[in-house]
């Protein structure tokens, strides 16, 4: 049983069980708070019975013209609450807001090329690898830019994969 609500500052003090996961980055405060200050609708937390933080998602909406899109910056679930499709619920919520409220064309995310379980999960949720970003992670590991088209992109133009990989400085957004 899950309550999904907007993330608030206090949750930063309670999300350690999620962030101790080695693949979940703990960003600096201005990073989290910039997201809260600018895109509060894209930052949600899931709580289980007993006020336990189960996981959270943070993201934003940006871009111009047909590049106007939702972006998943981080999604993470505590070990205790894995394997019950919580990440899917959180992703659906963000997609829904991008689609219905902000009328974006697509949602995208970056994932480490080595993080096979995550890539598989995103594929199950309907994301496709749009392009490879060379040495995206700390100049070492490649990242995959994955996308899912939303209802506004009727012809699904946004998800036609690029043929060649790009470098981080070719990225339109950070």
């Amino acid at each position, binding site marked *: *049983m*899950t*309550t*999904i*609500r907007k993330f*608030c*500052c*206090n949750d*930063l*003090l*309670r999300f*350690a*069980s999620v*962030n*101790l*996961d*080695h*693949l979940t980055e*703990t*960003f*600096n*405060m*201005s990073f*989290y*708070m*910039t997201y*809260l*200050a*600018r895109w*509060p*609708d894209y930052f949600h937390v899931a*709580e*289980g*019975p*007993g*006020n*336990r933080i*189960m996981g959270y998602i943070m993201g934003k909406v940006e871009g111009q013209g047909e590049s106007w899109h939702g972006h998943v910056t981080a999604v993470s679930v505590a*070990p*205790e*609450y*894995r*394997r*019950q*499709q919580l990440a*899917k*619920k959180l992703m659906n919520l963000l997609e829904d*807001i991008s689609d*219905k*409220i902000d009328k974006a064309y697509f949602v995208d995310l970056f994932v480490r090329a080595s*993080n*096979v*379980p995550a890539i598989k999960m995103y594929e199950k949720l309907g994301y496709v690898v749009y392009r490879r970003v060379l040495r995206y992670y700390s100049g070492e590991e490649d990242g995959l830019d994955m996308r899912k088209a939303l209802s506004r992109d009727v012809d699904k133009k946004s998800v036609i994969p690029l043929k060649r990989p790009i470098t981080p400085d070719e990225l339109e957004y950070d």
Partner: protein
Amino acid sequence: MSSSLAGKFGYAGGIPERKVRPVWDAIDSRQYKNALKLSSTLLNKYPNLPYAMALKALILERMGKHEEALSICMEAKELLHKNVSLLMDDLTLSTLQIVFQRLDRLDLATSLYDYACGRIPNNLELMMGLFNCYVREYAYVKQQQTAIKMYKLVGEERFLLWAVCSIQLQVSCGQGGEKLLGLAEGLLKKHIASHSLHEPEALIVYISVLEQQGKYGDALEVLSGKLGSLILIEVDRLRLQGRLLAQSGDNAAAASTFQKILEMCPDDWECFLHYLGCLLEDDQSWCNGVTSEPRCPPGSVNKLPHITDDMFNSRIQDASAFVRKLETEASDDSKRGPSLAYLEIERRKLLHGIGAKEKLIDALVLYFSRFGYLACFCSDVEVFLDILTPDEKMDLLEKLKESSVSTSMVPTKSLGLAISLQKLQLQIGITYKLPDAELESLAVKMINIYRKNLPLSKDLDPQESMHGEDLFHMASNILVQLYWRTGKIGYLLEIVMMLELGLNIRRFVSQYKIILLHLYSHLGALPVAYEWFRTLDVKNILLESLSHQILPQLLLSPLWEALNDLLKDYLKFMDDHLRESADLTFLAYRHRNYSKVIEFVQFKEQLQHSNQYLIARLESSILKLKEKANNIEEEEGVFESLKCGTQALELANDTLCQSLTFNEELQLRPWWTPTPKKDYLLGPFEELKHPMENLDHCREWETNVRENVERRSLLPRMIYLSVQCVSASSKENIDVNGSVSDSTFSLEMKSLLERYVKILGCSVDEAVKVVLDVAEGQRPLEALGSDLIDWVNFAVFLNAWNLSSHESVLPRAEGSTSLWHLVNSLLQKCIVQKVRITGPKVCSPGGDLPVLVQLIAEPVAWHCLILQSYVRSSIPCGKKKKKIGPTDGSTSVLSQTIRDSVLSLYSIIEVVVEWLKEEVNKTEDEAVDHMLSSLTSDPNEGPGKVYQALIELWSTADEGELGDRIFQGIKSWSPTDVARKTFKGQHKMMSTFLQICDSKLKLLETVKQQI
């Protein structure tokens, strides 16, 4: 040049943009030298142009040339003040503002903007800049005034909302009374009448203003009116509506609103609790205008008189019918919700005295059969178990066991089921009633289940959690219980071996790392504990919520370097955040997310008042004093940086007036050390019947923190004053006319001593009696309890004060000299006894080594400092090598006493050094053998069985079955290596401590020669 130029295209601060851009480019790419060169050229071309000056100042500040930067800024500021014709645009001012802020001179930026707004009225950009300055200074009233001016100027909704937020901040975080909210409401109403509202956040703020005044009806009216459509997400609007209805006391309407939400989000637990609470009218958490939403199901219910049994029954039937409907309609991924809801309904019935326990138990069995395989099963059902008696819990357990046998599932799920069953047994506590042997076989059983199921994880990615990781965690709980009962250290070592194996198999299990770091701390191998802590990658906000896992141990250890690193990282994080927080608040203003404005300010206050932040600041001061205590000249440098100890006093005074906050995430601690204050591994062993009891230690811990902070905040000043008192006393001996300031030191010291012992619960006279009795052996050392260090510190400071005071403090003494004896014999008693108790280290973990370390690092260090001060002030300048001859009788008596004191202290520390050397010189092989032998001692009784099971796991591992990764992980595990690592950790603790002791001996040697 006129200010209108600033806005024109192509100009920046009065300079063509193409000329400015290279400077900014250089700054952005951190080529400050080049930037400085470019900006100097620019300044030559545009001398006395404030923007060019501001740019140069900015670069100088980045280069660390703070004074130069400030002086240029001041020059620019003066120019702007003097010369009306100069350009005064936002670009210039905001550049100056950045530099002022980085130089911690927000006030200068504010006054500059204030002046500019006066000079150039009705300039919106400048007014926004001024508002921003007030946000940075948390000056809510000024913020409000400025926002209102902007609102009046342009009539924009956002500026009105800025003003309203500033009013709300005055009420929630400032000095403003609640009647200000009426003003905010009035402003909003007036604006709505003429312009309506256009932003969802504006509506949220309006409703919150009404809500804060208890005007729920009005708020509901607004929400259901035209403005309500601003909230685009239907569920969000309904949630707000439900909350307002519940607060207004309209339970029926609230319940139906929550019901609507549940139809859309059937898995929403919090909403279900609201629904049930309103439907049954038994949840009081909405009353009295409580706006924070209840998140836990109520532990008890208030039955209202107007609800008859029939009414209750019919409502609960409605609820059941509704939940059944949800269950049938729910999609696959939210079925857990309705099932839990059904459990809650049964629980509520019981609370109202009409339910049957069997029904709840049956519902739990059903829930188990469907969701028992989930890792969160036990935490899900925790609240429902609380209502059952121990016998009923046993009954439940039996039924669950039966049901698990009859269920056939895929292997991973049936493993999950088996784990939940074991976990539940631990949670209920029945395992703890088992005899030792059975308990031990249970732990062995868990390891065997783990082993059997390892192949299930063969194809998992190393990033994924493996199946059955919980089993090692549970087994470690059982082993702790066995350690408790028997006191046999082998059980703890078995846990260490087991978890190290687990981490060899998959190195990311943070749960294991946390247990290990506490066990290594307990075993005296703190360096190893610290290494594990570091692998958790605790940074940024996690430093606030997780440092408690290691910081308390480090504070009591000789590992000053590690302590210093942790404190530095943590303080940097906190200071940085407190500095930048206001900028982020302004960002929320700018992006019109007004509710975040209030939240950010409140959060900043919560961090600012953090107990850990206060402790860290105090302890980092004390650490500096400890580190330099062997050299009085260097110590004086430290005093200077700490404002002679007054800084710590101010810190505690300021913060303690406000209430301290406790932001630690305690849930992640092992249950046997629920707070940093409580560690069950230290005993008393008979106290705990069942480890899940007694978990509520938070209050005890919080009280202790407050007292401790108060005590520690006095230390730096008392140390400083001790040194002053001693040097003043010597001056008096030489120069009969003691100066006025000397007696001020003495008076202040006296009052601090009084405060210090008051925290210990007595007056100075009583305290003197206590330490005297202990020193003379009339009371046991235990009489000083856990405050031992504070008592000894008191004796040391008392002695120093007494030298400069003419009061006699000892009831049956003959002058000040006997206080020296008192200190010596007290130190001797404590230290010798602690050395005796601590004994040979390798197999005796626990509490006394930290006490010993503190005795040397604190009271002994302060006492040595006092001796240094005495020696220095009694030696005439320039004749340091020459021994002082007796000037008169009293001085020679004192010198003799002090010489005795030095000798005595020397011999006391030697006792510790001897003991430490013995420990340090133990060979690694000998220690490792000793450790491993505690795991294999007796074939008939524990410890050793779990260890055997681990060895078996290791020796029978099959590469084909487990896959290369798991197989290699298992094979790389070596108990001998683990034992060596433990020994090395202990050895490092001892040798670091030995260095500290040696340095004290060396110091005393020098002092001895000087007297």
